């Protein structure tokens, strides 16, 4: 039994990959929060998700192309797969698309709502306020530095260091430094004695101080506080010197200003990042949307494949069953409805296989019966014809063709009128059958005499309707037998009886009559006058001759009735014919003898066969007796197919009248003036006793041809002929 297993695919690996991708997506969405620990992994996660989505997309494209090829090739299950995939895609794309659109809109609106013109102005104003507040302080500190610088006018570099320390103590500056024009430190003093290096200005600050004679700036220090840096040119100094004073902004003010500055900076940064924020959120959402669509589409392929595979197998199975493979069996481990369907299919194939086996067995039995019946019918000497309800010939056996002497097997499916058209001799036969089958509902029997090929035949016909299992008539059957040989044998028997009686009744008084006539002639001869004596002689001779003729005729009758016991033996008929023809070679002017070489021997009584041949040659001689160009042809041939020897004795005499052809071999039938009519009857009887046949065929334009067929000698023929003998 052919078993086909439906393979179950494992989707663990793809499912694990999908879950990993989903987890990566989750991490990416989590990373968008600035406080997340995955913040630094955002780009990596984004790259992983893009690559994963591309792989998923490639997988989807590959599956779609494969499906498209299957669809074009009209592969089983491709249409329903396409429908399932499209349905899944439509089901997934609509809700996810809606969710994506509204989420994106909501996100954008939410981000935009964070920013407001009033807040913007307020933050800006607060920064301006802080700046103005610090500017006032800066200006006062600048003024203070100017005064300090005035005190350092005309001081040499040596004295500057000493003066600087006292000035710092008098001022509020935390650090005082003097720089040269090139930025070199000339002197410095700091409130913190541990600070050795001063807070140097950058070259641009120094440049501005050089250009404007003074410079002031607010700067953050390294402790999240604020300082004010002032740079003033010391007048009347040579070379040029610059005083830098560093003032520390009070802590409370510094904190407030830093707070405002930090808030402003954060707000500005946030405002600047608004577009990027929207983009990154939209990107994350798009990744989620793409992942959902791709995963749903891929899942639709997986689902469709799982769903279709058993159906595909079932379709293939049914196709195989339709093609005649009833041993098809599918194996499936599913427990759902499809599994039930496959099991039902397997049950069906088992039942079909069983039914097929039974049908095959029944068919074989029917064929055997048909062959048996056909064999019987073909070997039946009776003729059997089968007709359907419209009297069309459905069946004919060999015996029917032989009896009717027509190739009826070529007339299958012919109606009876069509058979009559094809074989006009069977017109009466056909009309009789039409009449009988049309009128008679039950069995019927009829004796029908007709003539075919110059032969009178008498048939005994038996017809009956054919019934089906439901007692419905499905056709007709005709069984017939040729009664002609039986009638002939009955007629022969009657003739034998007549001949025997005739011979017995006539032959007994003939001898006394002949003896009496001879005695009367002997006693009275010479005792009467010459005239009476002459009359006596003539009368007694007449009596004696007629009695002799009657004796001869009675002997013929006696031979016909009670032939002598045959003594068959192996006989070379060609030699016998050659001998007999030699007797007639002087009497018949044109006697032609044609004997085929290697004629096999027959098993026959040579005396009886000599009688036959002489009778026939003599008949031929008598037929051409009055003709100038009379001719007798004798031929002997071997019929290999029939395993018989054929002897033809033909003459070109006047022939036999057509009306006599059918009864020429019957007793007391003759065309001659002096014949008894028993010659050919005896000839036929002898031939039939030897298992042969004789027939007469007219020759065109004139003449008769007697054809004898005798079986070739075999062991079986020996035995049968011995038994016959």
């Amino acid at each position, binding site marked *: 039994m052919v078993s086909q297993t439906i393979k179950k695919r494992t989707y663990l690996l793809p499912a694990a990959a999908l879950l990993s991708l989903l987890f990566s997506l989750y991490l990416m969405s989590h*990373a*968008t929060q*600035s406080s997340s620990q995955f*913040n*630094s992994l*955002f*780009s990596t996660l*984004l790259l992983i998700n893009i690559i994963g989505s591309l792989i998923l997309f490639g997988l989807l*494209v590959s599956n779609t*192309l494969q499906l498209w090829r299957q669809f074009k090739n009209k592969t089983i299950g491709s249409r329903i797969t396409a429908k399932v995939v499209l349905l899944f895609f439509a089901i997934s794309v609509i809700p996810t698309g809606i969710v994506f659109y509204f989420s994106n809109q909501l996100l954008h609106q939410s981000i935009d709502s964070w920013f407001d013109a009033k807040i913007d102005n307020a933050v800006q104003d607060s*920064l301006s306020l*802080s*700046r103005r507040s*610090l500017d006032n302080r800066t200006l006062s500190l600048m003024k203070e530095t100017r005064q300090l610088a005035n005190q350092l006018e005309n001081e040499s570099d040596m004295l500057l260091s000493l003066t600087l320390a006292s000035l710092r103590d008098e001022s509020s500056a935390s650090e005082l430094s003097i720089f040269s024009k090139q930025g070199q430190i000339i002197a410095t003093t700091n409130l913190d004695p541990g600070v050795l290096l001063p807070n140097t200005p*950058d*070259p*641009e*600050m120094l440049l*501005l101080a050089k250009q404007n004679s003074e410079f002031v*700036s*607010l*700067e*953050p220090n*390294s402790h999240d506080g*604020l300082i004010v840096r002032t740079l003033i040119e010391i007048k009347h100094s040579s070379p040029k010197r610059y005083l830098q004073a560093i003032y520390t902004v009070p802590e409370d003010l510094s904190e407030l*200003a*830093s707070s*405002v*500055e930090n808030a*402003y*900076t*954060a707000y*500005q*940064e946030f*405002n*600047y*990042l608004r577009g*990027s*924020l929207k*983009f*990154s959120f939209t*990107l994350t959402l798009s990744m989620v949307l793409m992942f959902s669509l791709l995963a749903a589409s891929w899942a639709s392929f997986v689902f469709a494949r799982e769903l279709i595979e058993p159906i595909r197998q079932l379709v293939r199975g049914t196709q195989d069953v339709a093609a005649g493979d009833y041993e098809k069996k599918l194996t499936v481990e599913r427990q759902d409805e499809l599994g039930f369907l496959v099991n039902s299919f397997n049950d069906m194939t088992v039942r079909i296989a069983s039914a097929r086996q039974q049908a095959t067995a029944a068919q074989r039995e029917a064929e055997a019966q048909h062959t048996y019946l056909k064999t019987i019918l073909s070997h039946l000497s009776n003729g059997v014809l089968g007709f359907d309800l419209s009297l069309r010939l459905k069946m004919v056996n060999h015996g029917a063709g032989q009896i009717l002497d027509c190739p009826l097997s070529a007339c299958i499916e012919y109606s009876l009128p069509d058979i009559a058209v094809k074989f006009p001799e069977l017109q009466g036969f056909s009309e009789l059958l039409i009449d009988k089958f049309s009128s008679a509902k039950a069995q019927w029997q009829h004796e029908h005499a007709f003539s075919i090929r110059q032969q009178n035949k008498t048939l005994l016909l038996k017809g009956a309707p054919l019934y089906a299992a439901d007692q419905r008539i499905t056709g007709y059957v005709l069984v017939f037998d040729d009664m002609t040989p039986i009638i002939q044998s009955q007629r022969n028997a009657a003739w034998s009886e007549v001949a025997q009686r005739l011979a017995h009744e006539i032959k007994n008084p003939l001898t006394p009559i002949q003896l009496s006539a001879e005695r009367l002639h002997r006693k009275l001869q010479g005792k009467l006058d010459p005239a009476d004596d002459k009359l006596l002689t003539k009368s007694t001779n007449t009596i004696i001759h007629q009695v002799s003729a009657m004796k001869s005729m009675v002997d013929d009758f006696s031979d016909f009735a009670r032939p002598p016991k045959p003594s068959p033996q192996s006989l070379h008929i060609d030699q016998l014919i050659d001998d007999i023809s030699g007797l007639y070679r002087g009497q018949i002017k044109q006697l032609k003898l044609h004997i085929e070489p290697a004629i096999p021997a027959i098993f026959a009584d040579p005396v009886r066969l000599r009688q036959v041949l002489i009778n026939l040659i003599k008949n031929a001689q008598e037929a051409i007796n009055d003709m100038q160009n009379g001719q007798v042809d004798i031929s002997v041939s071997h019929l290999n197919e029939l395993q018989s020897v054929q002897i033809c004795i033909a003459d070109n005499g006047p022939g036999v009248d057509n009306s006599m052809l059918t009864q020429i071999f019957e007793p007391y039938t003759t065309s001659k003036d002096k014949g008894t009519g028993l010659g050919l009857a005896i000839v036929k009887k002898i031939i039939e006793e030897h298992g042969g046949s004789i027939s007469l065929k007219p020759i065109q334009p004139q003449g008769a041809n007697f054809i004898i067929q005798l079986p070739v000698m075999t062991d079986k023929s020996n035995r049968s002929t011995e038994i016959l003998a």
Partner: protein
Amino acid sequence: MLIKRLLFALCLLVMAIASHASEPVDIAIKTANLSQQQDSYFLNGRIHYSLSGEAIEALHHGVTLNFNVDVSIIEPRRWLWSKHHHNIQLSYQIKYHTLAKIYQISRPQDIGQHNFASLDAALHAMGNLNEIPIHAMSGNQLTDYYLALDAYLNIEALPLPMRPLAYLSPGWHLQSNHYLWSPKQ
């Protein structure tokens, strides 16, 4: 057919990347050398930084920019790829102080910070590499090894929402040429 289209798209992508790679650099390493003081080696160099419009705009909107300078000690090999013995990364931050209207340069590894009145001054100061100690270098490596210097804007240090666009925008791809020299010269 589909494979041909994919190959064509790939070619276009490669060409786009190649054209992008051939853009003029925004950071240029002008000089770099190694000086030896007793057993220690110090890196000195000059890097010219030039910010793109997008970077300056972001800086003025409160975004802190991070620049990295990678110093690599490379051993060239004849049959194999070069071996990187040590990688030293120097990080610089530049940010704009809105209240004081000054630019601050700081190094995360150092406590101090420097204030500058202008961006050019800040970038100029950031580009000066003065006596950076290279502790991983020893005397016997001078003959065979090479030093490589790369300076670039660290996109990963930008605020998260900016990163995807920064990767896609050429204005954010601030990177120097690969500067390679032999210390023995």
